[in-house]
């Protein structure tokens, strides 16, 4: 009996201490990691989509609820925003950034940022830009579905689930773009 108690106590204390240490380090590093992701992953993707802007879209960003919007100004006028969305993929969430022209809701570009898909298969959504380039110049409206589900999106060969994830992410994106558009335009104009 004593032995059992000792085992339980040791395991419990160990778990509690380690849980505490992990929680502490996690909260202290969250901000820095977010910054890193912005700088190394999302930043380059955002800049690629917006092309040559007269401002720095990373600096000119605003948030609505939990979502970040990066503003692209051309000759001083805010003309486009890039924001994030995500869809459920094979190994977890597939995160994308999508750039939209505010005037006509045209998609400027889509890039996959974070994902845990299978290398060589689903991961091609990130490494191979031919998949995401099909969205350029389409309108960010309505639902996006892969051809196998009756839609228009050309899936990556052998990576239907990942392609579905990107399509779902775009569908979500078009939904909240439509809902938040007036707010987005207002904030984009206000950002200094």
């Amino acid at each position, binding site marked *: 009996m004593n032995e059992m108690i000792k085992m339980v106590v040791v395991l419990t204390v160990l778990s509690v201490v380690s849980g505490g240490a992990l929680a502490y380090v996690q909260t202290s*590093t969250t901000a820095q990691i977010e910054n890193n992701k912005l700088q190394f992953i999302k930043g380059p993707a955002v800049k690629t989509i917006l092309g040559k802007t007269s401002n720095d879209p990373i600096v000119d960003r605003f948030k609505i609820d939990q979502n970040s919007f990066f503003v692209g100004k051309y000759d001083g006028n805010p003309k486009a925003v890039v924001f994030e969305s995500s869809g459920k993929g094979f190994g977890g969430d597939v995160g994308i950034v999508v750039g939209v022209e505010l005037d006509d809701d045209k998609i400027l570009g889509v890039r996959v940022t974070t994902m845990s898909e299978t290398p060589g298969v689903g991961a091609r959504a990130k490494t191979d830009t031919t998949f995401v380039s099909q969205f350029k110049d389409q309108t960010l409206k309505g639902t996006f579905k892969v051809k196998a589900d009756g839609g228009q999106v050309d899936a990556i060969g052998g990576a239907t689930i990942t392609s579905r994830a990107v399509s779902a992410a775009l569908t979500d994106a078009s939904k909240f773009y439509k809902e938040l558009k007036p707010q987005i335009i207002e904030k984009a104009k206000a950002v200094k």
Partner: protein
Amino acid sequence: MAKSLVQEFTKGLWKEIPPFRLVLGLCPTLAVTKAVENGVGMGIAFTAVLVGSNILVSLLRNVIPAKVRIACYIIIIATFVTLIDLLMQAYAFPLSQKLGIFIPLIVVNCIVLGRAEAFASKNGVMASTADAFGMGIGYTFALGALAAVRELLGTGSLVGEIPYLFKYSVTNVFGPHFQPFDFMIQAPGAFIGLGLMLCLMNLAAKK
């Protein structure tokens, strides 16, 4: 017969070097040695985990009941690995991206659990620390050596950066007409490279 602290440290550097003599921890050895900066980066992260884990296991060796010792070691090791993973994402992000899933996989690296069970649970803190540093640095050398061979033969140059330490760029080592031996960068090349290193180490040990 107790060995001196120095002996505990140096055995990990050559006589009992983890991947080549203990033949442990081969999966990450094969996977991260495509480039020297990956191999060395992995070695440093690994050493941090091994030192932390050995010290803690050794400190608690009389408290942890034998029946649940493996569970306890795993809690300790997994915690250290997660801490190192978070710290790397925060302060060495590009390296953490390159190593990807192999940082979390240090938890199941046989060397760490092996040293905890075979050594730290039976020896004092000083000896365990020396053992951990020796094994860790030996592992880093081993990874660096194998990665150097693979990167040199596979690309003809050694280019990279050790975070906070130095950058290096040694190009065209074999001259401009060198045809890179792509095979060495890929999986089969890893196995063959490792096999050759094992062979050389065995020959050296025989003498």
